[in-house]
């Protein structure tokens, strides 16, 4: 593989994970904070809130995972190598 291409691929893989982690990080923080607030206000609803929270956290996580898939494609199945 061309060294320029491999260098660019590694940098791009790092960036794709790092940038993809920003948004979901903020979103998950918001969701978890709101869930804690909800539990503090209504402790008897904790189980329901936990279930919904986990489900929505997994959805947000998917966005980072898309970044990961791009990174993995660049590292292990690079179309330009």
């Amino acid at each position: 593989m061309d060294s320029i291409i491999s260098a660019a691929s590694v940098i791009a893989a790092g960036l794709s994970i790092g940038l993809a982690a920003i948004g979901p990080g903020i979103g998950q923080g918001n969701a978890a904070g709101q869930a804690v607030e909800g539990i503090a206000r209504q402790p008897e609803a904790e189980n329901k809130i936990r279930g919904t929270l986990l489900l929505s956290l997994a959805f947000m996580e998917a966005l980072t995972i898309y970044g990961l898939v791009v990174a993995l494609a660049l590292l292990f199945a690079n179309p330009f190598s």
Partner: protein
Amino acid sequence: MYPDNYYSSTFTLLAAAEVGKHFYWNIAGFLVHGQVLVVIWFVVAILLLFSILGTSNADRIPHGWQNFMESAIDFVTDIAKNQLGESFYREWVPFIGTLFLFIFGSNWAGAVVPWKLIELPEGEFAAPTNDINTTVALALLTSFAYFYAGLSKKGLGYFKRYVQPIPLLLPINILEDFTKPLSLSFRLFGNVLADELTITVLTALVPLVIPLPIMLLGIFAGSVQALIFSTLAAAYIAEALE
């Protein structure tokens, strides 16, 4: 069919993660990933064994395995019922339940069973869902399922939803049919592969104790991903039915 240097091996040196290396079988001119098929058969055998244990000498008052399997069935029925509603859920319980149990079984088979003890000439045994082909197949099945649901309920009138609420949204509505399986398959594939890669890299750095919490997280994430996949499949079918 596949050139030898298709996958670059430059980056695999850090940990012994064998991404992109497969144990190829040549079946009737097609190259298939043997390690995935073996683990899938293992999962299917386990699921079959559980259901046979659960249904053989079934009692009116459940006990033992029957109890366990009935609670599992209750769980998957609840997934379908929550999304599809009281009137449609029954005929979709088998599909949604199979999706959930298969993905759950696959993720746990990858996370719990010590496959590394079995050496393969190339590639390694792992969760079948860490192969993009498996997840794409499951996602495409979901696509067919919701098209079938919509077409069988409304006939050709199903396609009216592409121009609703306004015809201007036609391209976006068509695009949605492609992004649904894409996001479904990538979500599952990425999550499972990410768990395994994290464990591999951590094990290469610190072999003892430190990877354990991540492994537990992997087991938990595996079950959540199975739940998500089946919930989303049920939601798509419900959307087509409404």
